[in-house]
């Protein structure tokens, strides 16, 4: 399995359309801290204080990192079929569930690595920015550790979601389109269409927000633990469906 994961990670490193979004997400993690600390105290923005640190860590490593890891693994797993590299992959390891597992594990590892790197960059930039504004740093305050843990964990789950979706659809454009439609349209209109506003908290993006920011005081979101379990359930569902179809489908045809 280690050699298969090594091959998957080499594919990631050698695919520009996969690693460029990840690099961009890391750059944005730094830029977000700089922008937030620069605008503090201006207009309606509150002044910088020691309590700003957890918010800076969450804001810089949250949705952008999740989206980048999701995109990268959609490109990598669906791209196997688009570019027909699946033929070489499955000739090298014909036990297809092992290949699917290697992709899912590699996607999770990518998420953890990029999430940790984003948080490290964000923490270093936050430390520099807060010190520059003479704001004392308090790393042991509530919210700092949870942000440091939540960001890599969420990114890992979004990596699995991306790899699973790519294996399931085998079409990069369709998988990217579905992911974008879901994030920007579907999750927004489901409560209106179903006339069940409470339903939204059970959907992936809302669950991810609940993990990152914790339960809202008005209890309109799930608790972080439940939300994490819900998101893990979505990831397991997509990963399982993608792996099962990969094991059954024919390889080397016009579409695969």
């Amino acid at each position, binding site marked *: 399995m280690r050699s*298969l994961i090594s*091959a998957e990670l080499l594919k990631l490193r050698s695919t520009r359309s996969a690693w460029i979004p990840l690099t961009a997400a890391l750059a944005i993690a730094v830029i977000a801290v700089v922008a937030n600390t620069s605008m503090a105290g201006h207009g309606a923005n509150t002044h910088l204080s020691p309590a700003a640190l957890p918010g800076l860590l969450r804001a810089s490593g949250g949705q952008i990192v999740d989206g980048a890891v999701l995109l990268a693994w959609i490109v990598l797993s669906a*791209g196997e079929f688009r570019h027909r590299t699946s033929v070489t992959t499955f000739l*090298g390891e014909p*036990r297809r569930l092992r290949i699917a597992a290697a992709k899912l594990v590699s996607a999770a590892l990518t998420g953890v690595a990029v999430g940790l790197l984003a948080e490290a960059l964000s923490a270093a930039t936050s430390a520099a920015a807060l010190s520059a504004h003479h704001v004392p740093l308090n790393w042991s305050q509530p919210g700092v550790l949870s942000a440091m843990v939540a960001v890599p964990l969420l990114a890992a789950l979004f990596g699995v979601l991306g790899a699973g979706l790519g294996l399931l659809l085998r079409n990069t454009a369709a998988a990217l389109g579905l992911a974008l439609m879901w994030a920007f349209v579907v999750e927004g209109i489901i409560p209106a269409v179903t006339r069940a506003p409470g339903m939204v908290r059970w959907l992936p993006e809302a669950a991810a927000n609940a993990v990152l920011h914790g339960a809202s005081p008005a209890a309109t979101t799930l608790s972080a633990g439940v939300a994490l379990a819900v998101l893990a359930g979505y990831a397991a569902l997509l990963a399982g469906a993608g792996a099962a179809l990969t094991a059954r489908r*024919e*390889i080397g045809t016009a579409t695969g």
Partner: protein
Amino acid sequence: MTTIAVEALTKRYGTVTAVDDLTFELAPGRITGFLGPNGAGKSTTMRLLLGLARPTSGRATINGCPYAELRDPLRHVGALIDPNVFHPGRSGRTALRIAARPARIPDQRVEEVLHLVGLGSAAHRRAGGYSQGMRQRLALAAALLGDPETLVLDEPANGLDPEGVHWLRGLLRRLAAEGRTVFVSSHLLAELAQTVDDVVIINQGRLVAADSMADLLEHTNASSLEDFFLGATSPDARPTHPTSTRSRSLS
């Protein structure tokens, strides 16, 4: 000893029968040409043999095992199914390194096969910029990565220039002389006639002939492989019965 065995292999796609009750065996140390008109079922047979598609019935084995049950298959079987199976943004070298990883084949072997197929100086270039012939050579390099005892090559001469075809003929001869089984499909009958020891001919998914080149021509009074092929696969040819006068086993 048989390395490739195809037993009553059948593959249907809906109402279309791509491979129909096909049976033959190949022996090591020989080059076997796999012939048939377009749509005869050659590529489907090779994909079934390599575990990329599932048979409707029957089985295809390599060294007694279905491909999917081989451990480290790259070290036993080298396959060229399609030259267009490389990511256009990756270099030839990286594409082979990725292919080599599952079998833990060292990077040194990647360099060896790149030089063997004449791509040493182009290895750093993106595969998307390769000519058809270069992609074919890269696919052949991928097939040779594990130094396998069995080679399954679908139209390996496609896109190669005359020098490339000559080089390929020498390479296949050398590999067979080392005791390997070489199973190669092609439409280039004249070229194949110079290269192969045995032939398996199919038409509409069914076996037409499986014999050594010499015996096939002798027993059928055909003047050439092309002469026999055209007669055996024409619409007027009598279907279904293997024309071979020998056993369908080439071992």
